[in-house]
């Protein structure tokens, strides 16, 4: 592939006076202080924000919106147009325009509602005077590990991270907060590393541990907990937009929780992030891919899909590809590539063409345009249970071996078969036919070419009752066009079609067994078509059960799948009209269908008998031809029958094979499935779509990465695998930065770049750019070691600070951007719920498995679901499903778990890398009133009542479970007063106590007095709603 230049935009933009990336960084972010008159101005810090805000919308990268063909975001273009004359502000068009007082001339124009301040104008003027030096956008320059800056207080820091943080604080004249106490740290660490509060005994052990590495040991123990993977996975699942329904329209169930479990397991196994990335983007394309790697590739399949009637296939496919591209853009590139769907990106150097080139990597999926509203929408693979896995993996070889044995025996048996067939006569064969209760065998005109038909009727046979078993069949030959009518019938059309028949419907074979059609009748129809223009043996057996399932349809001696088209038979089926071949009593003869060898048995033949009927019949037909005129296919068919039923050695081998195959089916049935990525065979490609419209195709494009990013090496394949490998190359400026920034956000509540999904031009600047780069390089050079990286973060002094906010710090650092204190923010929805479950002891710590349905108010699904949706009626689980961690809660996209959604959980309709964190009255109602939380309060109350004898001890136990610390005296007095009033109320209102204690399925503790338990339940409810509990 050719590129205009083998260098990034970074280097090209920096020309002619190029400086190294390291220098650019150091200059770009030396200090967040505003430019002063005597400073050298720095483009990224001082100038670009002014241009981006006021100029780039019309004079930036978007070629369609560009006015006067002028772009100011590229130096050479701005210089060429005379807008910028380096060193000569008075000759620069920009300066003339911004200073103009003429409404026609002035920039930005009045219609834009934007104005420049005098200070901003001055910056632009001075910048041009200083040479109008441009810089590429900071995040497009590959990070180079900076040296941690010198700090005044060298004793504070524990990790290199701390030097960067402290330098920032010292520059502002701030001191870090003191280290938080051990209990606070125990709780913070446990919540950050496992998503669960620590148990009181864990806290006390940590507090009491005087060893120098107590902190590290505590951290290591948490990192080893399986809850680690659940907690990290939960964040990832937002980014991966994992959910349990398809999303659009019916929003039906989608079975892909194996992907969720893969994510948890990957974190628990500390899979390096590079592998984690490659396997999810392209696990299916890896050489010798494993089952797990294919499951991982479900990342690309988590997107919503539709089956809405009326939607246009191509439009759906374009939408799916766009989602996959935008998701990868946000998660790995930290760029809002989606902006370039309809137009060139207004700010970032991604043209519309480049978006579609990027999308080509994700446009080569075999996923169909419609999901079929089924839970297993292709492409999927079976995923056996872990304990079945060894056998599952061994089975294919065993099946192959068994097949080989069967084939070998068949080869060996052929002469034996020939020897058996040669001496046979029609009579001998006929004698072998199953005779059981044979009621009728109708004349056998030769089954020759053409379509012989017998004319036959008899009142004497076939007058069965509905509880009698019988079998009926014939050799038939169906024309290519199919035909409809009875092959054999004893049926009285004039009286509600009473009776029965063997019915041909196009090319499908069926049976009617009727008292009165259609309300009181059975009908079973074969799923597949009969072959046309060849003699085919059909035989149907009925077991007298009165159910459609009692009808079995055999074609050429083998049982076939059938469906019930009617299944309500109550009355008698006996009729006086005669049995007729080729027609019902009064109907016309079925046209163009050959019928021969009609047989009727007074019982349900078994499979072996039916196989013999077909096999022997075929053998007889074969014998009527001279040996050299016998069609090979017919001979093979007879041979197949013979080995199956007349050759004990073959039969044994076939049974062995069948057992292996059914074992495989059984493993498959009790396992689950995975949605996987699957590449089309052709080369990845896409079209540029005018304005993003699916039917407005422009140039065909090949898969390629955007020019502003490092080139994709020649040796990498132009598919998802190559793309993933490109993401992880050391010169890639984004992947590592974006990832460490997201980790930082998880622990500190906000990223160093707060716009976690957008490190592009329109995203925010990093608060600590050098720290971000240091961490990015550290993470990558550590071999993308995830646990090691989190350990680094949580062992830093910055992390260990107390969260206490002093007035001074609130003034200087109100939202803690400078990390002048420890993190404190309301936990994510799942953590809030899991916290209540864990502290009350209700939590069921089971890893993985199908999603569960905890309590949810009635009607949440029904209110939004279509009547046809299979996720319309929410039925809560009982038992363990009520108490699993929230990441296992069934996620219906059109109606996400109600209590979680109120606490800002996303719908998972699209990728989310940063949740909102609001504080609303509806959230208070959840934690106060949701049965899940009320029950947890009761369980917590029961627990402290059982384990402590008096108020003080109980209140203290409550605090240790819910707050991970002992109660303070002033708090105890509040609780004492609350409890006094609550107890008085429930003593006086025992019926209310009973009602409250009846909330939730968890058992009550016998002998605990109801009034006291109710009072403590409300006290626990009060505690579990504390700001301190809801905050990390």
């Amino acid at each position, binding site marked *: 592939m050719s590129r205009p230049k083998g260098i990034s935009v970074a280097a090209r933009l920096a020309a002619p006076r190029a400086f190294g990336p390291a220098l650019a960084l150091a200059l770009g972010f030396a200090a967040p202080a505003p430019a002063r008159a005597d400073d050298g101005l720095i483009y990224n810090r001082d100038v670009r924000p002014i241009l981006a805000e006021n100029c780039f919308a019309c004079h930036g990268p978007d070629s369609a919106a560009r006015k006067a063909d002028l772009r100011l975001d590229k130096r050479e273009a701005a210089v060429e147009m005379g807008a910028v004359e380096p060193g000569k502000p008075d000759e620069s068009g920009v300066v003339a325009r911004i200073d103009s007082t003429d409404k026609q001339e002035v920039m930005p124009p009045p219609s834009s509602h934007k104005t420049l301040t005098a200070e901003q104008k001055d910056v632009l003027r001075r910048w041009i005077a200083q040479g109008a030096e441009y810089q590429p956008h900071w995040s497009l320059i590959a990070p180079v590990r900076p040296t941690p800056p010198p700090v005044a207080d060298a004793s504070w820091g524990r990790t290199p991270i701390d030097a960067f943080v402290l330098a920032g604080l010292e520059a502002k004249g701030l001191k870090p907060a003191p280290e938080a106490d051990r209990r606070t740290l125990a709780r913070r660490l446990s919540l950050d590393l496992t998503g669960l509060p620590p148990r009181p005994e864990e806290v006390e052990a940590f507090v009491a541990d005087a060893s120098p590495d107590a902190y590290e040991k505590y951290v290591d123990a948490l990192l080893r907990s399986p809850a680690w993977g659940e907690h990290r996975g939960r964040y990832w699942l937002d980014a991966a937009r994992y959910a349990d329904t398809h999303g659009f329209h019916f929003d039906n169930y989608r079975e892909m929780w194996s992907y969720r479990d893969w994510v948890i397991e990957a974190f628990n196994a500390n899979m390096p992030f590079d592998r984690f990335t490659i396997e999810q983007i392209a696990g299916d394309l890896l050489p010798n891919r494993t089952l797990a790697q294919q499951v991982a590739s479900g990342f690309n399949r988590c997107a919503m899909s539709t089956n809405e009637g009326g939607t246009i296939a191509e439009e759906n496919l374009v939408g799916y590809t766009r989602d996959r591209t935008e998701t990868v853009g946000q998660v790995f590139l930290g760029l809002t590539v989606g902006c370039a769907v309809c137009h060139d990106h207004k700010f970032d150097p991604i043209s519309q063409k480049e978006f579609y080139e990027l999308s080509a990597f994700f446009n080569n999926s075999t996923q169909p345009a419609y999901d079929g509203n089924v839970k297993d929408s292709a492409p999927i693979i079976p995923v056996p249970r872990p304990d079945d896995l060894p056998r599952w993996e061994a089975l294919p070889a065993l099946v192959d071996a068994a097949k080989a044995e069967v084939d070998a025996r068949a080869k060996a048996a052929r002469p034996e078969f020939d020897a058996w067939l040669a001496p046979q006569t029609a009579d001998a064969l006929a004698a072998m036919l199953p005779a059981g209760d044979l009621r009728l065998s109708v004349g056998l005109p030769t089954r020759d070419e053409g379509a012989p038909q017998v004319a036959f009727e008899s009142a004497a046979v076939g007058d069965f009752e509905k509880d009698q078993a019988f079998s009926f069949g014939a050799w038939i030959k169906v024309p290519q066009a199919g035909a409809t009518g009875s092959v054999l019938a004893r049926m009285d059309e004039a009286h509600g079609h009473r009776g029965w028949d063997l019915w041909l419907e196009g090319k499908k074979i069926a049976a009617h067994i009727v008292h009165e059609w259609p309300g009181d009748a059975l009908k079973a129809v074969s799923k597949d078509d009969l072959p046309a223009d060849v003699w085919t043996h059909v035989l149907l057996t009925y077991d007298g059960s009165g159910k459609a399932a009692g009808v079995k349809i055999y074609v050429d001696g083998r049982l076939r799948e059938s469906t019930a088209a009617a299944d309500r038979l109550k009355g008698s089926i006996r009729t006086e009209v005669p049995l007729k071949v080729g027609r019902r009593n009064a109907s016309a003869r079925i046209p163009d269908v050959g019928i021969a060898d009609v047989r009727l048995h007074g019982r349900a033949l078994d499979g072996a008998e039916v196989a013999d009927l077909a096999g022997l019949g075929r053998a007889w037909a074969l014998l009527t031809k001279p040996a050299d005129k016998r069609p090979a296919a017919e001979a093979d068919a007879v041979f197949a029958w013979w080995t199956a039923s007349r050759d004990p050695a073959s039969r044994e081998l076939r049974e062995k094979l069948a057992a292996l195959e059914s074992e495989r089916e059984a493993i498959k049935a009790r396992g689950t499935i995975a949605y996987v990525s699957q590449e089309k065979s052709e080369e990845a490609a896409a079209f540029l779509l005018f304005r993003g419209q699916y039917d407005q195709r422009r140039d065909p494009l090949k898969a390629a990465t955007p020019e502003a990013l490092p080139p994709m090496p020649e040796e990498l394949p132009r598919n998802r695998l190559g793309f993933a490998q490109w993401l992880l190359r050391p010169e890639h400026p984004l992947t590592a930065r974006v990832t460490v920034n997201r980790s930082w956000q998880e622990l500190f509540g906000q990223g160093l770049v707060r716009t976690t999904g957008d490190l592009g031009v329109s*995203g925010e600047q990093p608060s600590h750019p050098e720290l971000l780069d240091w961490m990015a390089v550290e993470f990558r050079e550590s071999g993308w070691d995830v646990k090691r990286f989190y350990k680094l973060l949580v062992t830093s002094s910055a992390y260990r600070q107390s969260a206490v906010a002093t007035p001074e710090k609130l003034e200087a650092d109100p939202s803690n951007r400078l990390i002048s204190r420890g993190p404190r923010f309301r936990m994510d929805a799942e953590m809030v719920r899991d916290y209540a479950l864990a502290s009350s002891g209700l939590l069921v710590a089971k890893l993985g498995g199908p999603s569960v349905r905890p309590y949810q108010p009635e009607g949440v699904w029904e209110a939004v679901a279509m009547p046809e949706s299979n996720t319309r009626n929410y039925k809560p689980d009982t038992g363990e499903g009520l108490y699993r961690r929230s990441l296992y809660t069934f996620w219906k996209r059109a109606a996400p778990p109600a209590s979680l959604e109120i606490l800002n959980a996303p719908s998972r309709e699209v990728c989310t890398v940063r949740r909102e964190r609001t504080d609303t009255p*509806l959230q208070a109602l959840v934690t106060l009133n949701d049965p899940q939380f009320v029950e947890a309060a009761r369980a917590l109350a029961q627990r402290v009542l059982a384990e402590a004898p008096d108020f003080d001890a109980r209140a203290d136990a409550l605090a240790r479970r819910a707050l991970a610390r002992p109660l303070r005296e002033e708090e105890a007095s509040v609780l004492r007063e609350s409890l006094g009033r609550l107890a008085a109320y429930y003593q006086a209102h025992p019926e209310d106590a009973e*009602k409250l204690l009846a909330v939730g399925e968890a058992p009550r503790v016998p002998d605990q007095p109801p009034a006291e338990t109710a009072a403590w339940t409300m006290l626990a409810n*009060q505690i579990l709603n504390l700001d301190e509990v809801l905050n990390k």
Partner: protein
Amino acid sequence: MNPFEQYALSETRRRFFRRGGNAVGWAGLMSLLAKDGLTPPAMAGGPVGGSGEHLPPIPTHLAPKAKRVVYLHMVGGPSQMDLFDYKPAMGDWYDKDLPESIRQGQRLTTMTSGQARFPIAPSKYKFAQHGQNGMWVSEMLPYTARMVDDLCFIRSMHTEAINHEPAVSMLQTGNQIPGRPCLGSWVSYGLGSLNEDLPTFVVLVARPSNTEQIQAISARLWSSGYLPGEHAGVSFRSAGDPILYINNPPGVPPEVRRNTLDGLRALNEMNFRQVGDPETHTRIEQYELAFRMQSSVPDLTNTAGEPESTYALYGEDARKPGSFANSILLTRRMLERGVRFVQIYHNNWDHHGNLGGRMPSQCKDVDQPCWGFIQDLKQRGMLDDTLVIWGGEFGRTIYSQGGLSKDNYGRDHHPRCFTMWMAGGGCKPGAIHGETDDFSYNIVKDPVHIRDFHATVLQLLGYDHERFTYRYQGLDQKLTGVEPAKVIKELLA
């Protein structure tokens, strides 16, 4: 820390957060946060209370005519030529093919794109002219016919979307791709709250009497998109608790809840003294607001005190929870209590087949209740500053989908023209805007794109749609998007 300082600090911060809905409070907050480079819209929490007289959080650009909005969305797309867009010439066209000159290669849904022919189905319903303006209205809507002089009809609405999900999204958010804020969120963001104990933007999903072909309606339609989360619609439920978890647990009367909240507040204050996080006070206030909602919401939804005359006006269906009539009655009660924006979704207008069988109950569901509601607002003097909007996400085709007889037919989706009406709130009473061709297929006069419609609605609310923006992903995002949009002056009073 000096306790006096601490108190002063807490009071300052507290006032900012408590009075978040108040412009002064916001300004103060902004100045505090500006030092930090944080812009208010990204703040957690945000305005909740505020007095009735406060200035809108986003200053209006012109004098607002409408203070409140009620949006009645007929999900599925009502058939314009069976209700409002009278096409007598079609009588002679029964079962004849739609001329290619009319269809002009129009993109069709895959439900009819495979049809061999496109036979015209004239409306089976009788039309008559009503009111001073002589508006033609179908016999299906006798009550609506009585108030045509109060309504402002647009017969020339058009859109690009041809399927429900994108079309509803287009109408509600100005974009076919989900994820943008809807009109209600924009209004909440701009004008803020009018009350202290109810949400600003409420959604009601009414249950139609017939549910033969209802469409998916999900919370993504009333999400706040990129606007802060507090501007998302709060969906009141027709069954069970009107707001999720509004009721105390069984066995917990209000006095017990009050008791626990008092204890909670005392403990939270202690924690605040320890930690000094201003968010703690926001949380205390949210718990108090929740408590107030626990009495204000039941008061709102308890219609037992409504006089019999209410049901004479709205119809007997208004007694049935979840019906459209009941929903629009609740809407009036919400408006009285200061809810700014109410959105009702009424489903099953997707008449692909059996239009003749289904249209009567669809119309009956909404006809009298809409009339009653408008009369009620008039009586109460609220129509002048309440904008009421009625319509679906697109129109339907003149040609029949599936079987055609004189009395029954189906109609496919049709984006090129459809009819909506507005009332009150500064729109022009009695206006009839726009015309379509004889086939109700193409607009021949005064087309109104959804963007124009949005621009016009914003104008009635006091906003210039070009300047009513929110910065997101580096762009000043607006409801009307990037394509040109214009206010339709003829629709303004």
